[in-house]
């Protein structure tokens, strides 16, 4: 496993955001709503903590943003996946599965 466990925990939010954006561009609030709904509020984060994650991901080039007309009839910032982001999503997904498998082996040793 290439990433250590501390990074993994922070990376979880990023992985979920990448996953969300894989379906198309969304603004920050839409991402927050999606996270609430799909995880059935199981992953409770304060709304505010989502944005630093988005900004950092943009800085790394995984996502890109631009201002577009929104449902409120005024510009909102929309995020979308870049090619690098799509690659990152693929890699993170594989690593996450490996991580989960490893933890599972520890917790339920086979007989």
């Amino acid at each position, binding site marked *: 496993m290439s990433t250590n466990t501390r990074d993994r925990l922070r990376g979880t939010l990023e992985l979920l955001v990448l996953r969300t954006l894989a379906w198309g561009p969304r603004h920050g609030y839409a991402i927050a709503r999606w996270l609430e709904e799909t995880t059935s509020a199981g992953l409770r984060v304060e709304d*505010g903590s989502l944005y630093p994650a988005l900004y950092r991901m943009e*800085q790394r080039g995984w996502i890109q943003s*631009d201002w577009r007309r929104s449902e*409120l009839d005024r510009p909102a910032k929309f995020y979308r996946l870049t090619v690098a982001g799509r690659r990152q999503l693929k890699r993170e997904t594989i690593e996450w599965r490996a991580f989960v498998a490893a933890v599972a082996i520890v917790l339920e040793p086979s007989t």
Partner: protein
Amino acid sequence: MTSRDDTSRDASLPPEVIRPSVDKRVSSEIAFHIEMRARELVARGVPPEEARRRATERFGNLDAVVAELNRIERTTDRTARRTRYVAELAYDGRFALRMIARRRTFAAVAIGTLALGIGAATAIYSVVDAVLLRPLPYDEPDRLASVWVTQPGLANDPVLSWIADGTPMGSTEYQALRRDAKTLRDVAMWGQASVTLQTDEGLERLPAVRVTSSLLGTLRARPALGRAFAPGEDVLGGPRVAMVSWEAWTTRFGADSSIVGRSLTLNHRPYTVIGVLPPNVRIDRTKEAVPFWLLALQDSFDLAERRNRSYTALARLAPGATFEAASQETAAIVRAAASDTALSARVTQWQADQGRDARGPLLILVGAVALLLLIACVNVTVLQLGEAAGRIREMTTRAALGAGSARLVRQLLVESMAIAAVSAVLGTALAWAMIRGLVAAAPARLPGIDAVTIDARVLAFTIACATITGLLFGIVPALVAGRSGPASLVRVGAGQSARGARGLQRGLIAAQLALSMVLLVESALLGRSLRALTAVDPGFRAADLSAYAVALPMEMDTTQTRSFVAEVVRRLGALPGVDAVTAAQNVPFVGGASSSPLEIERPAREGQPPRHTQQRSVLPGYFELMGMRLVAGRFFTPEDRAGAEPVAIVSAAEVERDFGGRSPLGTRVRHQRIWRRVVGVVADTKYRGLSREDEATVYIPFDQYPYSWPTFVVRAGSGANVPSERTMKGILREVEPRVTLTTTKTLPSAIAQSFAAERYRAMIVSVFGVMASVLAAVGLYGVSVRSATRRTREIGIRLALGGTSARVVRLLVGDAMTGVAIGLVVGLPAALAAGRLVRPYLFGVTSSDPISFALVAALLVVVTAAASFLPARLAGRANPAVVLRGD
């Protein structure tokens, strides 16, 4: 960040991003989030006030998040700005190319103008680079030193001034320098020679050099094949060994490695080839690589006591030594060695020394081409300012869309650079062609001229040139746009504005005319100087004369020489079409010159030591054939033969110098240890150059002083052809097969060759001058057309109010004339200064020659009148009703 799929923007305009500040962006994003959340709560039935409070609460620590986001965003912004800059630059580039494509006439004229300037600059630079700048292909070439003995006291002696600045060396100085010099290492000498090579087809005369055995070591070069000369071989009676140049080996000897050890017959003696030189070793860069290297100091004439000085010295500066120190040490050493306190020395960098004569004239060309390039820049600036008028809509639209001044300035600069880049490509192609012309027309003795090419160094120059050019002509419009907004640019172009802006355009035109004036005055001065030079009477009639210089083997004695010359003269005279034949030593402009001290029996000034005098032994009939004028006494006759009383004829300059103007007839002069009676005085002739002072000369009958390098001179009958080289070779083979023909020239061409350098300079500068006037005319025409168009309304009113078209034409042409007047006034002092720079190269005209200045002024006035007349006449013919209605 802007995205490319944003289609709301006009695609033809660059991305002027409407970017709110960082803080604003962050806060509006968060405000949007909270608002959405609040709406959601309201939708679930929460009262709006409460919904807002809960949405904010749910967001967490608002201030902390905002602060962090701002921090992240600012760092992102910096990197983004960089990427954006590059992206915008690329966009600007594409946009610029589109603009160029759209404004074809402007672009064609601008690119043509600049390509001409850049091409000419590149061509001249390539010559300068090859001749003066490109390092020689040897190890540490900047430490290679030319070592010259100088005799400053001779600078004013017309006969000897040519050695004042660089006296050849002999073995005495050489040995002393090798032994004593601390500042010089690896001292070596070389001298020009020519050899007669015996081949299967017969004898062939080829250039060669005689070198000391140390020379190849001084260059730190190794033989490509075989061995180099060994120390101790360059002594009297040393082994007859030769080295062959790489070039001769690959062409003449078919790159056959068995050449080493082979025996060649050079100068009728067997020589063993010991090695092949590496490629591109050229000791005298003014000449082709010589095929053979022989050893110096092997013959008796090189012995120290013979005082033969015919070598040029080359050395390496010792570590830590300077050229200055080496000069001083060398002077001291040669003074002691030759026990002559009049000697001094000059040690300079080898390459610089070889290009010494070429440097000044080349700098004139550099100055001329710089002027041309500058004129091209000014011209394009004027054109571009004019173009701005056509861009009103584009500029104002972009300014309205929020493009800042900086953005527009950059766009304009990128456009200029794009034009410069295209011009550079075209200019390089043009330079290729120009270089061919420059090299083909180059006079002999331009060192390195055959190595002129466009290489990486020259291309780097071209790119630098184009960049500076682009900035130069781009900066004015860009600055105007930047300082007072694009609208002012439009005003300047349309000429609608304030005086200042219109003044700028006028000023540029005046500057262009002033620059053209400088260049034209320079070419007029050089041209008139050349005319004066060619008008000089050489003192003989060159038309229909041709000369054939031959080399006799050293083994031929004086009797054999006399009969050989007599027989060749007889055979040449028998050829059809030949009117007369003679032979002489050192025929003017064909052979070399040689001098020796001439002692006067009763000198005008007591105690005056014999002074060096040009010497020339001639057949009787020489003076008549050359068409020389007899001043007093008689010419030589066939009776002045060997055994008869030794006689001499002196030149007018000799009478002036040594006889104080008294008649020398009957007095005796001593030449080469023989007292001779002076029987005649002849008018002076030029020998080495039309601009040179007349030199004191003594003529001696050939029979009494048979010289082994005679030159035959033939006068062809009117309309007849002179004997060909082939005919001459045939005669020589029959009379004496060991004699070789060294030079065949007609005298008019030989004289023309003597001012080839002057003609080359004058020609190039004139070509640049013509280009400059054409550019000025094109620029003026463009401006006149625009000015006539701009003033249509005014003209319409004038015509409607009863003005005649003649008056309109006068008005517009008069305007242009004001410009030319300003240009001439400004250009005058500059042209005077430039004239002083070329003064050393002028002959027969002063640097402030009024005729040259008047001619140039007249030319510029005519060009201006012509360029402004056509548009003015069109304007004057306009129908006032149409003009006024159209506005």
